[in-house]
């Protein structure tokens, strides 16, 4: 197994700042916008962006929720291993809000498809956008594309993109892992 660095700590930091600025361009004061981190791995990115928007760019009260998509997945009973559920924590109404889905890696698009179904349980959003740190090109199974992306990556089937966060893995970095 070998791994290659796709983004180091500084590059992750730069990407985060750029993504935050792009969000501000489209959402201004975030008055009618809510961020939704997709469980489990999108939550770290979502929390980072919220902190960045509030601390660095002085935007007040950015709403952030966590959405678990386990019960909405289309590979229930098809995947080899059992699906593990996580907590959903959305304490606001998404009705007529602009929702930004946040996930670390966009690969087949199936998680996002599930998230699109799952979010309907919380109301009818005005619009939904997708932000992802890593966009794996040419690997989509569904017509889903990100509105904001940190880095586009070409990775072939056997390769895996691993996103590490300081609060979880001890460092900020993105690796391409080959088996």
């Amino acid at each position, binding site marked *: 197994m070998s791994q290659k660095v796709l983004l180091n700590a500084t590059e992750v930091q730069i990407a985060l700042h750029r993504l935050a600025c792009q969000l501000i361009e489209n959402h201004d004061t975030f008055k009618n916008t809510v961020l939704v981190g997709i469980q489990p791995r999108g939550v770290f990115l979502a929390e980072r962006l919220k902190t960045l928007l509030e601390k660095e760019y002085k935007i007040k009260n950015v709403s952030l929720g966590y959405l*678990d998509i*386990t*019960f*909405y997945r289309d590979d*229930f*009973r*098809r995947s080899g291993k*059992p*699906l*593990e*559920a*996580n*907590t*959903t924590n959305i304490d606001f109404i998404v009705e007529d809000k602009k929702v930004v889905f946040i996930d670390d890696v966009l690969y087949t698009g199936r998680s996002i498809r599930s998230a699109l*179904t*799952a979010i*309907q*349980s*919380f*109301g009818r959003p005005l619009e939904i956008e997708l932000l992802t740190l890593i966009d794996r090109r040419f690997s989509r199974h569904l017509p889903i594309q990100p509105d904001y992306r940190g880095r586009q990556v070409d990775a072939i089937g056997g390769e895996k993109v691993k996103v590490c966060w300081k609060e979880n893995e001890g460092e900020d970095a993105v690796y391409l892992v080959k088996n």
Partner: protein
Amino acid sequence: MSELSVNHLLGIKYITEDDIQLIFETADHFKEVINRPIKKVPSLRDITIANLFFENSTRTRLSFELAEKRLSADVINFSAASSSVKKGETLIDTVNNILSMKVDMVVMRHPNPGAGVFLSKHVNASIVNAGDGAHEHPTQALLDCYSIREKLGDVAGKKVVIVGDILHSRVALSNIFALQKLGAEVKVCGPKTLIPKYIESLGVSFEPNLKKALKWCDVANMLRVQNERMDISYFPSTREYTQQFGVNKALLDDLNKEIVVMHPGPINRGVEITSDVADSKQAIILDQVQNGVAVRMAVLYLLASKIKHNED
């Protein structure tokens, strides 16, 4: 999260503590789901479940049906009263006929103990026991323990007394197994005639005095007097039963501590429990009912995940 060690839920006796904890953790997520504005998830949309009730039930049947619908499963209902069982069809024939209509899971209540175990050996579907005679009622025990866990934080180390008709009660047996697997201490209390002779072989002690039992416990689970299962008189009169084994406000006020009062329903108000206790804050009877849906969703979800997807 791992998966259940069994393919059927036939009784608490056949599952492990890890299975119970997994069901509880999954139920936590479903409890959040059923409190959303839209209370439905699509997980079981390709699963068909038959509810076979060979014996009357309101709560359990509604609870299962709701759990199945919240998981988007297709549901068919069957009750023995209006079926060919009356014409003499055997259990296996009845179930195989239903299964040939492409049913994946069977939820069954049956008056004969062991009906679920028997069926699981002969038919090719996942079986959930919704009560088999005086044997087991596993989902009731799971939701009772889940409610204790929710109210008191944990089941381990708690003292639970089960009061009433232990002899005819599947709820009592399943509760004893579940509570012991989760590390609680269990006593039973009731008229001697309604206590099974060998109860102590289960590691459960018998306390004939209700007041002493209540003083000892953290949780009192009051069972219903099952008149329909009593072929002979087990106690002189309902009035005498109430005087000795009915819980009332005065009795609880006398304890110097607040215990949790549970009841699996349906309540005989004024017999095993008075109205003021049943409607008090100490009683978590309606929480039990709400948790029942979440726990049953968890059981169905976890069992369904073990049915392998058929590619053709």
